[in-house]
């Protein structure tokens, strides 16, 4: 990332953030810079420090060390100024379940000191905007997951915050709920809001984020656009799906690919490897399979997924079998 970004264009600056829980280091010198009006994805597995980062940025936790600024205000010394300019959508709905959607929004509006009348008007606007205007007196506990998420998002937007933090916003939502949240995020960004989004779903970061920081063990281990990160693993890959999983071993030995870089997924009868020359690799593989009499169901060239990027960045020192996101990837020995 270029160091030349002007300060005025920076919405969030994190330098050397540390946070410990007892002996456990949740953040271990994390650095981050998020440009104004951009969507920044923070990607990492469970326990990488993503939620700790969001809780610190939204003033719920105090960092042990580090310099953090949000829209030009020091997070620790000027937390009230920061609080007026941020919205938070955490992993769990931050709503009063016993009250109705309207009661919730009016209450939060009053607590933002909008005044009773303005809070009422604002609640009405937001209910309308998020398709919740007809929920009446129904308590939030009776809402569907998607409705709750929308109300939660509405509550985060009462003051039209400059920065919105989304902590795994679509975890636990069905595909429709997920699409709704994504649409809402895109429209916010269209209106100039800066969004910092944590996710375990690589697809989500890929879909929404302008830039992505890959976080592991409390620090950023890679940073860039989705394409830049994908380029890190060495460009394109070839996927070969065999008819018979028993022939995977033979195929790895046989194919004109660097055996050490081939990953094998027995469940899907799949082997996958990076390639440099796309066409040469494709024809070489097809020819080799034919000659050896190994039947393939599919052979395809593709760009690497962020899963592979993540494994590439973190995987080597942790054994061959690791779960990341929704995919199980086994590294060949």
């Amino acid at each position: 990332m270029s160091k030349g970004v002007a300060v005025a264009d920076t919405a969030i600056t994190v330098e050397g953030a540390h946070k410990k829980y007892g002996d456990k280091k949740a953040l271990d010198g994390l650095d981050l810079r998020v440009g104004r009006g951009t969507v920044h994805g923070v990607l990492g597995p469970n326990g990488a420090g993503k939620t700790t980062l969001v809780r610190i940025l939204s003033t719920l936790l105090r960092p042990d060390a580090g310099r953090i600024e949000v829209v030009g205000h020091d997070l620790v010394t000027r937390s009230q100024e920061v609080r007026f300019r941020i919205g938070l959508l955490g992993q769990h709905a931050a709503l009063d379940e016993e009250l109705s959607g309207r009661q919730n929004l009016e209450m939060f509006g009053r607590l933002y000191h909008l005044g009773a009348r303005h809070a009422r008007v604002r609640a009405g606007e937001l209910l309308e905007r998020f398709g919740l205007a007809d929920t009446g007196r129904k308590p939030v506990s009776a809402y569907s997951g998607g409705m709750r998420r929308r109300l939660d998002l509405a509550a985060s937007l009462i003051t039209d915050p400059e920065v919105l933090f989304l902590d795994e916003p679509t975890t636990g939502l069905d595909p429709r709920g997920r699409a709704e949240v994504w649409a809402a995020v895109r429209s916010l960004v269209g209106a100039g809001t800066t969004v910092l989004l944590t996710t375990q779903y690589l697809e989500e970061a890929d879909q929404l984020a302008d830039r992505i920081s890959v976080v592991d063990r409390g620090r950023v281990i890679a940073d860039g656009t989705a394409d830049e990160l994908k380029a890190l693993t060495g460009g394109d890959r070839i996927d070969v799906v065999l008819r018979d999983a028993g022939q995977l071993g033979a195929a790895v030995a046989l194919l004109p690919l660097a055996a050490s870089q081939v990953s094998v997924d027995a469940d899907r009868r799949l082997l996958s490897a990076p390639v440099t020359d796309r066409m040469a690799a494709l024809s070489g593989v097809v020819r080799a399979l034919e000659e050896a009499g190994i039947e393939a169901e599919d052979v395809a060239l593709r760009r690497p997924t962020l899963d592979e990027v993540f494994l590439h960045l973190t995987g080597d020192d942790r054994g061959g079998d690791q779960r990341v996101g929704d995919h199980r990837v086994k590294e060949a020995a």
Partner: protein
Amino acid sequence: MSTSTSTSTYATSRYGTRAYALTDSWTMTRRELAHWARQPVQVVVGLVFPVMLLLMFGYLVGGGREVEGGYVDYLVPGMLALTMAFGLEGTMLAVTQDLNKGVIDRFRSMPMANSAVLVGRSAADMLQSAVSLTVMIGVGYAIGWRPHGGVSGLLGAVGLLLLFRFAMLWIGIHLAMVAGKPELVQAVQILVWPVGFLSNAIATPESMPGWLGTVVEWNPMSQTATAVRDLFGGPGGERGHVWAAVVWPLVLLGVFFPLAVRRFRGLSK
């Protein structure tokens, strides 16, 4: 409505949380009142439960009890104190529930006076207790209890009872902050019974074995009950006990109020 008009309004909003401490506390109190409106049955059960205890002890258990000056006049002030003591578990339950829900994160990430979360809770609980006291006094009157200390005695007694409740409230908040889990609320809900009954609320210490009587007399709740009996001019009252009923709750507050506030601030650690 357009974003620009809204933004300008918010930009001129004040950040000063102290200036808004009262308004925010009132908003948080209103939140509790809205909960009551949503759960009228729960509210009524909360009010009826101590009444039920009073009637049970007054008629079922107390039938065979002899206290000089009349058992009902002895029992009613004791049950008033017990009702205040049992308020502890209600406070603890409510705070525990709040802490275990995401909504506390929203409150804490907003530019509101953070104290309002606890002050609003206190105000609502004190209001509930005042209503409960009124109901209990009404029922006590109906079953034949009479205050003999005049209006000032009545007001003084209610004041002492609410002071005691206020101390219980902050113990409840502190316990919720320490325990933090709904399972532990259950333990406290059970424990308030022996602690509540290890007092002079229902039986005179003289009627108990010596060591038990001593424990009972030291129970802060007994101090309040004795002082209230005195102010009502009924049996079991002792002159000069009012100071103990003022000092004990203040001591408890002196310990648990700062502890609870520290715990609350410590949420950001």
